[in-house]
Each structure stands twice: as structure tokens, then as C-alpha cells.
């Protein structure tokens, strides 16, 4: 199906997520949509698949204008979207999930659906048992299931939003092969990513978005440097790496054994000094979050010990960790990090130590102003956090950390920020390091991990590598280890 979008605009407050995008995607090709975080890729895809509505502009399918006002309408028109996080029902089994969304009849036809499922799965070489519970599948298998379901629903246009996040190399290859097969069957595939290599490997055409606008369209052979320049709008100049690591120990982990819902991390032995930065690399969901939460005191280790400044913290509550100066910034900003309806000042008051019984708001003004300007948050002390844009919320979460801190545990500290803000944020964080704060952070961006860490821990499905010196390691080496190759695991 030929899909054409005309002059699509979508503003969120002052943020121009999509600012007049025109694009024609002929059927039978794999169209890449490339752009850094916050470039407007997801917004555009959500508009095409009916999750949100554009403020203006048209969508045409095979030359006919259509209105896509809900995902169910989209799938009726043949547009199916696979989201970054699988939107399925983990407590149901595979075949029930497969059937979901089929309309028309009161009773589902299990036998026919089952046959159809097995037939589709065979075509793409997937191997999922139809009676398995979805919660027992890997993320990669859940994506495969979702892909089959969309095809079963009659999708002719398939949109995949960052599908390779959190899946193994093998599964990635499987899904890529499936997509190539689909494009041969004359289906339209839209592949959204911010990863250059994947787009170059897979796509017949790449459209690059930047700040809500379409910057250009490229066809193979691709020149990586061109794509980078289009994505960022300029050559990116980076600050020199520098270490603020001291020789004074801050955190010590001994034989740490942590158990999560679907994962365990074993035998972590580590010593981290004041001012040291530890980058956690690995596919999303390989145990980095669990590790950070254990260090924050949110998850109790099964065995082993955590020492902070020489004090044994094992089994202590999260709030006791906080009293030791440990602070944790979760990735889910509005779900866990910030409180809707609260202003920036309210957040500061909430985290500071109580002075008396009643609040004197005035006394916080200068402090809040300082935090806002230090982290370049575009907002006033009385601005409510939900009124801030995503990037500013991210800056605010970091600005609102309680002080003083000894250990910062940051999940994706610069997610959604452009490259300049990222550099700013790290300037600030490195300043904390000079004052003796140790930082643990995870990131999907390998460059970020290599540039700002002193040591890197690579996570691969719960296994943790020995600390690697960040200086001197290459993207390739790191990439292989993330995929589980040449990984030297801690003993």
C-alpha cells in the first residue's frame, strides 16, 4: 500500500513535535525513519497509526485521503504498529494474544486461528509455542508474536518503533529477515530507529527527522557521516574526556546476589572510588535497572554485601540509603521521578530536610532559582512539572536531586536530550564528581557510556562483566560484549 502524508503538524504546548512533514512511502519498500531522541519520529508514527491525532495535515492511502482516529481504525485500513514496549497481555497465552483485536464474531474460532498462526510462524521461521504464556516469552518473541498478530489482522503497512531495543542479536536477525520477506510481498514497512547501523543495514530508503522537520531522504549506498550531519544538524564537537576519580573508596560490593522478577545477578564484586563514574552498558532489560535499584536500597539483595563509605548497608531501607547520600533518578520521569501537579519549588521542599512544622516558601526561592539555572531548566520555580517538555523534565529530575549526595544512580540521565544539553548535563555531573560524588548510570548510547565513564560494566541477561577501563575500548568491542560475545564475567 502506498502511503502519503501531507504537511503533518502536531504541537505539544510550545514543542513542535511534528512541524509540517511531507513524505511519500511507496509499497514494497522498507522505509527507515531516522532521528535522535525527541526528533518527532514516534509522534509521526503514532499519528499514522491512530494513537494520536495531528493538529493539521492529511494522510492518504493509495492516493485516497483517510482519517485515522484510533488504532482500531488504523488496522481496518491496514496500518499496524508495533510499539517499542510490547503492548500485549502477559498473563494470557500466545494464541489468545494472537486472537485479540479480531472483531465480528462472538466466539473466536480457535482452530482456524491456530492453523493460521502456525502457518504464519512457519513462513517467517519463528518458533513460539501457541499455548505458552506470553509472560514466559522473551521480548524478542513477544515482538514476533505482535508482528504475526498484525499480519493476521490484515496489516499492509507495518510500523516498527525502535524494535531492536532489548532483544538479542539472533532475534534481531530474525526480525530483519521477516521484514525483508514482507517487503518482497509488497507490504510497506516503516522502520523507526536512532541507530545508524541498523537503518543502513535494513532500509531501502531513509528519511531523517530533526526537531519535528523532515531534513532529507537518502538512498543507498549511505554515507554515515552524511546521516549524522542530517540528524544533528552539524558536526558535533565533544568535550575531552576527563576523569575525576580519586583513590578513596566510596562503594564496595561483595559477592552481591540480586534477584529480580525475571532475572538474577550473581557474584558482583566491585570497588568504586569517590568521583568515579561507572557506566552500565547492555541491552535494555539486561539487569542494569535491577543493579541500580539494589544499590539504591529499593531491591534487597539475596546475599552479599553493600558498603557505602565503609558502612554496611545490606538490608537497610531505601530511606536509610538516602540518608547516606545515595540518590536515585528513575527513567520513568512522570511515573516515578516527578509528581504531577507539583511545582519545581514543591519538589525541592519535598526533598529537603524539614525546617519546623510550617513551610516558608520564600526561603526556598533562591535555592530553587539556582538549581533551575544551573541545569538550564526552561521553567520558573512555580511551573508545574507536567508543563515542562520531556527534555526539561529530564533536566529538572537531575536539578532536583537532594544535596549533598555521595552516590548518584541515574537511569538514562540524558535520554531525550539533544547533544548539547547532554554535554551540559555531564559538565555538571562531572563537577559533582570533583566534589567526591560517585556516579552509576546506564544509557542506550554507547558513545555516552564510553565518553563519560571511568569504568564500564557490561550487562548481558543478568551476567555482569568485569569492570572495563573505558579509555581504550572501542564501540565494536563493546557492541560484541553487549551481544554476549567475548564477555569476561565477574567471578
Amino acid at each position, binding site marked *: 500500500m502506498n502511503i502519503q502524508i501531507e504537511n503533518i503538524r502536531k504541537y505539544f504546548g510550545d514543542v513542535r513535535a511534528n512541524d509540517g512533514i511531507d513524505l511519500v512511502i511507496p509499497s514494497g519498500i522498507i522505509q527507515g525513519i531516522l532521528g535522535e531522541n525527541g526528533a518527532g519520529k514516534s509522534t509521526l508514527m503514532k499519528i499514522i497509526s491512530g494513537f494520536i491525532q495531528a493538529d493539521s495535515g492529511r494522510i492518504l492511502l493509495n492516493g485516497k485521503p483517510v482519517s485515522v482516529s484510533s488504532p482500531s481504525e488504523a488496522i481496518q485500513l491496514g496500518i499496524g504498529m508495533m510499539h517499542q514496549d510490547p503492548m500485549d497481555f502477559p498473563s494470557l497465552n500466545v494464541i489468545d494474544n494472537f486472537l485479540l483485536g479480531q472483531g465480528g464474531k462472538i466466539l473466536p474460532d480457535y482452530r482456524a486461528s491456530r492453523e493460521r498462526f502456525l502457518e504464519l510462524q512457519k513462513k517467517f521461521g519463528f518458533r513460539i509455542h501457541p499455548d505458552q504464556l506470553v509472560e514466559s516469552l522473551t521480548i524478542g518473541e513477544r515482538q514476533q508474536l505482535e508482528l504475526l498478530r498484525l499480519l493476521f489482522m490484515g496489516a499492509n503497512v507495518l510500523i516498527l518503533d525502535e524494535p531492536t531495543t532489548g532483544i538479542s542479536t539472533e532475534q534481531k536477525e530474525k526480525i530483519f529477515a521477516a521484514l525483508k520477506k514482507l517487503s518482497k510481498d509488497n507490504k510497506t514497512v516503516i522502520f523507526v530507529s536512532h541507530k545508524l547501523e541498523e537503518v543502513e543495514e535494513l532500509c531501502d530508503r531513509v528519511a531523517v527527522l530533526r526537531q519535528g522537520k523532515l531534513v532529507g531522504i537518502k538512498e543507498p549506498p549511505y554515507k554515515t557521516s552524511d546521516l549524522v550531519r542530517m540528524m544533528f544538524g552539524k558536526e558535533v564537537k565533544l568535550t575531552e574526556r576527563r576523569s575525576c576519580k580519586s583513590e578513596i573508596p566510596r562503594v564496595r560490593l561483595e559477592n552481591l546476589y540480586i534477584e529480580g522478577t525475571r532475572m538474577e545477578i550473581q557474584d558482583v564484586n566491585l570497588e568504586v572510588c569517590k568521583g568515579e563514574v561507572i557506566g552500565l552498558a547492555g541491552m535494555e532489560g539486561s539487569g542494569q535497572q535491577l543493579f541500580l535499584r539494589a544499590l539504591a536500597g529499593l531491591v534487597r539483595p539475596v546475599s552479599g554485601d553493600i558498603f557505602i563509605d565503609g558502612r554496611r548497608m545490606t538490608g537497610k531501607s*531505601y530511606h536509610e540509603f538516602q540518608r547516606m547520600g545515595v540518590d536515585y533518578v528513575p527513567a520513568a520521569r512522570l511515573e516515578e521521578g516527578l*509528581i504531577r501537579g507539583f511545582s519545581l519549588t514543591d519538589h525541592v521542599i519535598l526533598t529537603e530536610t524539614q525546617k519546623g512544622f510550617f513551610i516558608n516558601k520564600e526561603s526556598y526561592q533562591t535555592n530553587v532559582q539556582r538549581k533551575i539555572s544551573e541545569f538550564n531548566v526552561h521553567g520558573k520555580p512555580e511551573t508545574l512539572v507536567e508543563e515542562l517538555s520531556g527534555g526539561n523534565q529530564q533536566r529538572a529530575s537531575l536539578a532536583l536531586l537532594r544535596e549533598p549526595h555521595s552516590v548518584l544512580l541515574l537511569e538514562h540521565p540524558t535520554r531525550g536530550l539533544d547533544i548539547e544539553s547532554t554535554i551540559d548535563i555531564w559538565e555538571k555531573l562531572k563537577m559533582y564528581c570533583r566534589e567526591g560524588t560517585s556516579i552509576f548510570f546506564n544509557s542506550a548510547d554507547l558513545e555516552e557510556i564510553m565518553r563519560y565513564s571511568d569504568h564500564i560494566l557490561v550487562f548481558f541477561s543478568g551476567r555482569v562483566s568485569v569492570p572495563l577501563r573505558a579509555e581504550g575500548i572501542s564501540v565494536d568491542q563493546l557492541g560484541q560484549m553487549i551481544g554476549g560475545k567475548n564477555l569476561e564475567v565477574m567471578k
Partner: protein
Amino acid sequence: MIRQLLSSNWVSKILAILSAFLFTVLILLAIGAQPLEAYRNILAGSLGKWQKIGEVIRAWLPLVIVTSGLAVTFTAGLWNIGVEGQINMGAILTTFVIRELQEQAVSPSLVVFLAILAGVFGGMLWASLAALLKIYGGISEIFAGLGLNFVADAIILWLIFGPWKRPGIGSMSGTIPFGEQFRLPNLPGWPISIWTILLAVLIVVIVYIVLKGSYFGLRLKAIGRNIRAAFIKGVPTVRHMLMAFMICGLCAGLTGSLQVVSVHFRLVPSIASGYGFLGILVSMLVNYHVLWSLPVAFLFSTLNTGSIQLPMVMKLDASLTGVLQGSLVLFVLLLDGMSKKISRKVKEE
């Protein structure tokens, strides 16, 4: 223009009140009654005479106390449906203390004082049960409260027909009334005690100030808006939730206690008489603002008192006011949601 208007909070509130009255008028017309006549009767039966106004205030004060307590739990995002049972437990423990001490050589004022303390304790006890079930048992406070309401009701009935029954045979009219000396004295000419007024004012002021300007209030708000983020930010959520329940239980227990020592002078079945549920309606209507709950609670008390007239004068059921109150809440919530949606749209453009 119209959308701008609709997006205003005030316009939507006024529209909601008009819609609720219109809705009730339609119902009255449907059953063949005279709407204006009905409203006139309600007004006459509530604000028509000084004596009636006294009755309205007598119903208003306990409602104000309960609603203030509920403002605390609602602020923390907790639905203390068990408030009705907490009122009943307050009444039970108050009655218990007076029954135990009335024959003893203790000064009656001291007895009443202790009885009120016991009532407050009873409310807090019942509230803390709901809180503990929620915090440690993982049971929604709504269901825990609902269950505890039934238990409290059952305890009252058991006491009235069992251990505390009147000589001879128990009856729905309750336990034996206490002597004059165990009743809070009324203001001359009014059916209200000065103590009830003072306590109500005290509670409104304290709750208002605490929620408005204290660290405790801010933390409760944080919990109510996002308990997970509040915890991550370092708020001791369990302790604060427990305290919110206790404060609400305190207010509810006090209400039950006052019903015994200044209204009924004995324990009667369902002595809470719906004040808890009515308080929840008032709280929702004013979006948990303590000061606004004063006039709204007054309106509700007026309607309740006035509607007692209806069966006698017009052969209408007194539950008409219930319909009015319920539809008022529904329309306010409905129009509030609509107005928010519209104002978001207006803002986006």
C-alpha cells in the same frame, strides 16, 4: 467564546448545580409532583423558622467535622469509605465509658470528657484497621472500609439487642438514655452545644492550616498524586498514610461521640446516620478543599433537614434530597471532566 466559558472552573460548577436541579425537577414532574412546591417545602422546613435553622446547624456541625477528616485522607489519595463505621465505633466506645462510669463516684464532666476521648480512640482504632489492611494486607482501603462498616453496624445491633438492651426487651430505639448530667449542655434556645461548635471550628482550622502550609500536608499531597514518586523522593509513605487514616478516624470518632453526648444521649442503631457517606459526597464536590466544604455541607444539611417535611406535606419520599445530592455530585464531576478536557484543547490552540 462558549468553549472559553466552559473551560472556566466556575462556569462548569454553576452549570453542574443548575443541571442537578433540572434533573431533580424532571424526576418530580415524572412522578407527577409540583417541583416548585417541593423546593418551597424543603426551604420552609429548613430555613423557615429559627428552630429549624437550629436543626440544620445541628446536622451541619458533625458533617463539617467528618468532611474535614476526609479532606486529609483524600489529599493522600485514600478513599476512606470506612468513615461511617469509624463514626459508629466512636459512638460505641463513648456509650461504653458512660455506661461503665455513670454509677461510679466520678464527676459527670470528667465522665463525658473521658467518653469523648474514648470515642476518638474508637474512630482511630477502626481507621487504623482499614489502614493496616491496606498497607500490610494489600487490601484496597475501599473494600476494607466497607467490610469494617458492616462489622461496626453489627456490633451496635448486637449491643443494643444483647448486653446493653433495655430492661425486658431490646428495641430499635436503642439503649437506655443517660441522665441529664452526662449530656453536653445546649446553648439556651438552640439544640446545639457550644462544645460541638468549638470542636468543629478547631478541627476545620487545624486541618486547613496543616494541609495548606505544612510539610506534612505537602507530603500527603505528594502521596496522593504519585505515591511511587513520593517514596522515591524520600517521603515515608507508610507512616504518612497511617497518619492520614488516624486523623480521619479521629474526626469520625469525635463525630460519633458527639452524636451520643449531644444528640441522642444513648446508642441507637446506625447512629452515624449517613454522615460518613454524605461527607464523602461533600468532599468530592469541593475537590477536598476544607473551606469550601463548609457552605456545601451547610447546603446538604439544609436539604436533609428540609426534606423531612416532604412525606408529611406532599406525600413525597424524603429520599428526594438524596437524589438531588447524588445528582449534584455526578454533574459536578461530569462537568469538571468536560471543562478540563475543553480547557486542554483551548490551551493547545
